[in-house]
């Protein structure tokens, strides 16, 4: 009788060991199942978002723009107006005084808006042209256009109210033309606050004098629209960015 009891107890302990081992294996399998493919998935998503940024930049350089800086569309009476490539317009403007003037910046803003219009309510972006230097601090912005969603005054229709507060405001799309003195303003003040940023860059040449031209970098940063203090009107028009609002961009408010 004693023998039988001992045998039953041993079998019970064995089975408890068995369930402990199986539980450990199951936990491992479950962990594997949950995490499997996450790396590949995020890699594929980043392929898509970097493709998106690069495609947008290419399209910006391909599309035509009206000579007055407005975006070209099928509704534009093109038979009676001149149109050109955006880059041709920029080169022509730059050749005069080595600056990208307000007219050209407005043309850039109009082009950016027309290219990215289908995604306008979900992304913010920054377009830039820089001159790269051979030493640190020599690189500088020739043009920086930032498109951001910023809080505006209450309109009474379609305003956003923060949860559990009476803090309401409208959201409007604003294009800024900026002249920052520092090359790293975006990396310092915006990128750390907006999450994942997708970037695309390419080289262009701009005329620097008679029969001479130099390479410049053209680029586009895109990120999912998010309200951050760094992107508020006061900060963008403040000392770091030196931005002014580009008026007259054909923007339909969300």
């Amino acid at each position, binding site marked *: 009788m004693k023998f039988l009891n001992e045998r039953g107890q041993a079998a019970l302990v064995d089975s408890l060991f*068995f*369930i402990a081992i199986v*539980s450990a294996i199951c936990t491992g399998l479950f962990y594997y199942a949950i995490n499997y493919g996450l790396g590949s998935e995020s890699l594929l998503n980043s392929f898509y978002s970097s493709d998106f940024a690069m495609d947008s930049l290419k*399209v910006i350089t391909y599309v035509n723009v009206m000579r007055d800086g407005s975006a070209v569309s099928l509704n534009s009476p093109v038979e009676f107006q001149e149109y050109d490539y955006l880059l041709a317009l920029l080169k022509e403007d730059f050749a005069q005084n080595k600056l990208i003037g307000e007219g050209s910046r407005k043309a850039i803003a109009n082009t950016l808006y*027309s290219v990215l219009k289908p995604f306008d309510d979900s992304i913010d972006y920054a377009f830039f042209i820089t001159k790269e230097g051979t030493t640190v601090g020599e690189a500088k912005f020739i043009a920086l256009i930032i498109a951001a969603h910023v809080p505006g005054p209450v309109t009474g229709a379609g305003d956003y109210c923060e949860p559990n507060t009476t803090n309401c405001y409208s959201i409007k799309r604003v294009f800024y033309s900026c002249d920052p003195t520092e090359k790293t303003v975006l990396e310092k003040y915006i990128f750390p606050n907006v999450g994942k940023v997708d970037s695309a860059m390419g080289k262009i040449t701009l005329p620097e004098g008679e029969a001479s031209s130099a390479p410049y970098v053209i680029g586009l940063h895109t990120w999912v629209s998010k309200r951050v203090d760094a992107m508020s009107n006061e900060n963008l028009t403040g000392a770091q960015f030196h931005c002014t609002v580009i008026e007259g961009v054909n923007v339909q408010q969300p």
Partner: protein
Amino acid sequence: MKKFFYKSKGFIGPIGDDLPSLIPIVVSLVLFFTIFALTLNTFNSKNLYIEKQMNLTSVAREIKGDSLILSIEDFQKKCDAISLKKFPYNFMVGVYFSESDLKKSIDDFVLVSKEADPTIVEGTKFIPATTIAGDSRTYSCKYSRVGAIAFNPKKSGSYMLRYYPVAVQYPIGSVDDKQYIILPAVMAMVVWE
């Protein structure tokens, strides 16, 4: 045997006596096979998802090329070249002007999926071949595997939809005085099983 039973009090047979130890064994086996099936299922479905996304990315890259569509013939040629490669998934591509409302793109793809010729489908918002005259084709194409069911977002299970900015060189003016402008557009692509 009978003698043994009576002598060993509490012994209720070889299985009955081990019943308390059998319960954890059975529970652990059930647990193991459940988790194993779940893992296998997740593994397969994630592999399918990744494969589908890779196909979508690769087909989209081939069709949009350098993000510039020179003409409807150029677009159709690229679509035809892709169709010859026998992809394991079905896909449809449509190009919209960037001013279009993309919220209806799924409805357009449902219409295209039902037609034999995807380039001549009435009621879609895809870019027409030309606004000049006579050509009713649109910038759209379709690849269906043999025996594939028509695209139905409610019944097709998981499908993937992606948008890519492209530029389209578009003819304007008149037949006698044809000009071209390059307009911003969006290429929509859907992949389904």
